[in-house]
């Protein structure tokens, strides 16, 4: 009897083994490049998609201007030349001739630009710069190869917005007229060196190479696939098992991948910064949301909270040493108004010094154990470090006698709190991507801004001056004044700048230079040089 049972079990095992055998062998020669991504909002409607998620358009939908992968400058792309009127209210673009849309939808002309902008104006538009594009009064097609954007007020950041770093993707008017939105949803035609093939919702999006690109771009890989895998260990597994050749991994896991022979490709420029914001800094007179009993409305407390953090250790541990210091939140060396002096003064004002931090707290009236607050943390796909940083902050603050409590929420909850100015209780680390200085001040510090990170009369006044000024030297001065102010006041706790980093299999990818500043971060797939 026992024998018969063993037979049954054996038979079942055999059956299982046969199913195992059917697993297919890996394709040895790589014609298809697979990128494992943490995921993005899957949609062909670029006007509702935020900049980081423009990754899915980068291979096939082009923009008027390019972002140079090495210098980060804005260079010609679908537009050959551009210029602005002296008052910065009109921007004129001279379009390239002889550019063909995919799938036979004809040549690219001015009406496609007008059409693409019109899509951006639709009521449901939620793209990053949707608000910016609404500042356009009119897009005028002078002729087939010249368009003029008429703005309501002086606008200096147009090259950024119209470039690969912005979000105005040029799609075909001819396709829309012929197939309507349905056709566009199904297989949008672009002008890039890859053509859209299709999506498997929740799983992947795929592209194939175009043979006659107008700029003679010829990507090395015939097919390109973005695989979606939200779990970090799954992305690492995809990479190590050879199913994917490039993966977007948190800095901590990059070490693991390196040990297994993978290689890291960093963007040419820092892309994101991390800062810890202190809630409740509403210093405009008579703001009912201002609460004087919030500890960090006192400057020494803000300085103490800064000095309690060992930035170097934090960077070397949680971020595996990958990053550079941020001196003023939002300002990189590339930004308007960057002040080189910040670097030399930083250590004295912000550097790690728990003893001084304790003394500063005492001076402000907070002895050991008397200051208590919450640290909010949240994660976004691809940015898993938030909670870890929050916990590390908790450990640092414990050292200087500050009690903290960590609450992990999601982004929507935290955002609602600071948008509605009910975040006096808390501090929160956040990773934000680079924007031009003026755009960043408007978004973050201006009192009419939706985010209320730190606001007072000085910043409001300077910002108004900045928006009215078109003289580069003067603009530099104003932007610097705002930066200096934030620096002197310890407006928040600036931490690090990060470059975009992807991990790739060096047997497949030899070289890849990309700016990181372009929307979608890991961009310029056409420039990838395969391994020999």
């Amino acid at each position, binding site marked *: 009897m026992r024998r018969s049972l063993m037979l049954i079990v054996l038979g079942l095992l055999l059956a299982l083994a046969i199913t195992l055998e059917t697993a297919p062998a890996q394709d040895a020669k790589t014609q298809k490049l697979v990128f494992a991504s943490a995921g993005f909002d899957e949609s062909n409607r670029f006007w509702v998609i935020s900049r980081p998620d423009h990754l899915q358009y980068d291979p096939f939908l082009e923009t008027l201007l390019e972002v140079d992968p090495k210098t980060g400058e804005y260079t010609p792309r679908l537009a050959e030349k551009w210029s602005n009127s002296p008052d910065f209210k009109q921007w004129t673009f001279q379009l390239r001739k002889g550019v063909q849309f995919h799938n036979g939808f004809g040549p690219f002309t001015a009406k496609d630009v007008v059409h693409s902008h019109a899509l951006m104006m639709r009521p449901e538009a939620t793209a990053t710069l949707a608000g910016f594009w609404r500042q356009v009064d009119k897009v005028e097609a002078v002729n087939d190869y010249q368009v003029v954007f008429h703005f309501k007020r002086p606008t200096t950041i147009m090259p950024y917005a119209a470039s690969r770093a912005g979000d105005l993707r040029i799609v075909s008017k001819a396709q829309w007229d012929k197939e309507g939105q349905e056709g566009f949803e199904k297989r949008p035609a672009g002008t890039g060196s890859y053509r859209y093939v299709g999506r498997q919702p929740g799983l992947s999006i795929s592209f194939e190479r175009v043979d006659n690109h107008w700029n003679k771009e010829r990507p090395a890989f015939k097919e390109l696939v973005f695989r979606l895998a939200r779990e970090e260990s799954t992305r690492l597994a995809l990479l190590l098992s050879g199913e994917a050749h490039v993966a977007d991994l948190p800095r901590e896991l990059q070490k693991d991948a390196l040990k297994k022979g993978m290689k890291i490709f960093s963007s040419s420029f820092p892309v994101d910064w991390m800062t810890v914001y202190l809630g409740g800094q509403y210093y405009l007179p008579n703001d009912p949301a201002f609460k004087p009993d919030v500890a960090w409305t006192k400057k020494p407390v803000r300085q103490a909270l800064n000095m309690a953090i060992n930035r170097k250790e934090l960077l070397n541990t949680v971020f595996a040493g990958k990053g550079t210091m941020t001196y003023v939140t939002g300002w990189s060396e590339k930004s308007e108004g960057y002040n080189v002096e910040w670097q030399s003064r930083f250590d004295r004002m912000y550097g790690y010094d728990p003893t001084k931090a304790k003394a500063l707290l005492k001076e402000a009236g907070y002895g050991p154990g008397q200051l208590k607050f919450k640290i909010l*943390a949240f994660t976004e796909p691809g940015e898993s470090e938030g909670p870890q940083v929050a916990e590390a902050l908790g450990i640092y603050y414990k050292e200087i006698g500050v009690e903290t409590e960590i609450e*992990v*929420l999601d982004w929507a909850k935290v955002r609602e709190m600071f948008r509605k100015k009910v975040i006096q209780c808390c501090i929160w680390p956040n990773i934000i991507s680079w924007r031009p200085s003026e755009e960043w001040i408007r978004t973050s510090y201006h009192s009419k801004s939706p985010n209320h990170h730190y606001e007072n009369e000085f910043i409001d006044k300077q910002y108004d001056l900045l928006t009215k000024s078109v003289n580069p030297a003067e603009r530099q001065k104003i932007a610097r004044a705002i930066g200096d102010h934030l620096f002197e006041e310890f407006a928040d706790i600036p931490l690090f700048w990060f470059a975009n980093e992807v991990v790739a299999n060096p047997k497949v990818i030899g070289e890849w230079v990309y700016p990181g500043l372009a929307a979608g971060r890991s961009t310029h797939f056409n420039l990838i040089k395969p391994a020999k």
Partner: protein
Amino acid sequence: MATVTARTLPWYAPPRVAHAWRRVKRYPVVSLSILTFVLVIPAVFAQYVAPYDPLKGSLAKRLRPPAWQQGGSIEHPLGTDKLGRDILSRMIHGARVSLMVSMVAIFVGGTLGTALGLTSGYFGGRVDSLLMRLVDISLSLPTILLALVLVAAVGPSFSTVIIVLVVLLWARYARLVRGETLAIKERDFIARARVAGASHVRIMTRYIFPNVVNSLLVLATLQVGYVILLESALSFLGAGLPRPTPAWGLMIADGRELIVTAWWVSMFPGLAIMLTVLSLNLLGDWLRDHLDPKLRHV
């Protein structure tokens, strides 16, 4: 089928040790001892047993491997986590958290379910049919999804987790107790109690309830393990206990992406969960066989 065993042969006396062993074997010794050492002792004496503060860490000491691995030291026998906290201490305190969460959730859910089940089974009629519809709805809810939504709504906290767990658990108790009550209330001693003038509440609490305790005990034992697993699933989905609570589920969820290089971060709490839940299940099975053979199908 007649079998010949040592016991049927009167002239054969097994050696003492074997005899004692047989007596011991009747109880699930292994399960009980695992439970004692992995769950109960750490949970009760956490602050005396744990070598370090489970919340205090140092980034300089992060991701130290366990003592027997290269680079490890006896200072942190099971290594440290991403923030340099001692894993052993976190696990010891984690036992307390796990035990507390499951006890509270099961107690609340069980009490609620039992009360409703008793009422439903005892009174029958409309009350019964209404409550049983409720049970049906509750059992058919895609609860994990609702848990996700609930946590998004109010944020993760100890009480949110308990609420989610109670919503998940109560219906099973209600259904079980109701079934038993239906059977018990037809028995003679209930009728006699009624004749003697006992009130409804008294009959339910004094006469029916003691007869369902065994079944409840079995179900509760089996569910301690289930709750520990649920807590870890919730942590994985970001809807579990708040940080930096040293909870087993949260520890695994936190260390899951380091499974290649820093396997110890998630592996030890994983093993702790596995051993505990396995022992609980074996114990539950044993209890089921001994206390309540009717429950086999639950």
